[in-house]
């Protein structure tokens, strides 16, 4: 009884500690668990919802050697970490936003992909993006909540995993393209 009385008399202190802990560990946890760019694959999707944990868990099952961490974020995450968006390896964006991010993408090397029956977004005559959602069907829809219209998948211009360190970004694209109509 005395303990409960004591706790109630200091409830505000415990509430402040709870809030501080949540905020603090949000940053500390990300700081401690983050991997360097060459050991991390990052996907950003401009969609209304990303089941990031489930997507990452699925990807982890067969991740290439050398990759320690896989992250998937919606574009809202940019409010926490803009650099992460700029250096992302793979992007999924709606057709109408492609022009706005055009400089953030690089041309695809189709020899590294099993490109069968795919529709591409071309930039200066080079295949640059792969259509992953046509408005009704597509790829990995169990993990990404697509809106209306078409969505394309792009390779990041600053990605270290598109030939520079390894080809893990192509591996990720290949995995997504295997998640047909989920």
């Amino acid at each position: 009884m005395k303990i409960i009385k004591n706790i109630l008399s200091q409830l505000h202190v415990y509430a402040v500690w709870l809030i501080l802990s949540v905020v603090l560990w949000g940053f500390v946890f990300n700081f401690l668990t983050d991997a360097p760019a060459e050991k991390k694959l990052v996907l950003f999707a401009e969609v209304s919802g990303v089941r990031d944990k489930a997507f990452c868990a699925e990807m982890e099952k067969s991740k290439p050697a050398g990759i320690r961490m896989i992250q998937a974020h919606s574009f809202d995450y940019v409010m926490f970490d803009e650099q992460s968006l700029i250096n992302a390896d793979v992007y999924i964006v709606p057709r109408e936003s492609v022009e706005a991010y055009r400089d953030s993408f690089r041309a695809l090397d189709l020899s590294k992909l099993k490109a069968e029956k795919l529709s591409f977004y071309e930039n200066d005559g080079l295949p640059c993006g792969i259509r992953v959602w046509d408005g009704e069907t597509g790829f990995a829809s169990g993990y990404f909540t697509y809106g209306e219209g078409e969505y394309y998948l792009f390779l990041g211009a600053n990605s270290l995993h598109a030939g520079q360190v390894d080809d893990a970004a192509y591996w990720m694209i290949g995995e997504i393209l295997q998640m047909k109509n989920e």
Partner: protein
Amino acid sequence: MNKMTPLYSPEDCSRLDRKIQATRAVCCCLAAAALIACVTLCVLTSSANAGRNELACVAIWVLAGWVVLYLRRFTLKEARDERQHAEMLHSGDKETVRGRVTVTKERMRIVNSIRFTLVSVENEQGTRRLRVCSSREKKLRAAGETLTLYVVNGYVAGYDCKVKSE
């Protein structure tokens, strides 16, 4: 010959010191254990279990923090204040008050500190109200009714114990 029996004997003071040290040690160990557990969880984190581990880290940190806050705010502070009070009673200038002593049921708490019980002393000069730390109340009750109290700033420091002179 009269001899004062202090309400806080040297054993009582060393018991309070031990309590302070033990509480501090528990707080430090708990904080260290929580930190080690959280860092271990961070090290064991993969993309698949990141969410769960982050939640576990927050839960461990919050719970350990609450326990430490409680111990510091109540257990440690009360023991420290009581120790300081005992020190003040030992070193302060004492006056004596003799009379019929009644330990009342009225209690008061100094804000954020220890509790005191009010004691009334009746003699020819009237009634005087004094305070005794509530944890020492029993000792004073057991001493008898008519006593000489040793008082420091209105707080009872001890009572007399009659020793037959040879």
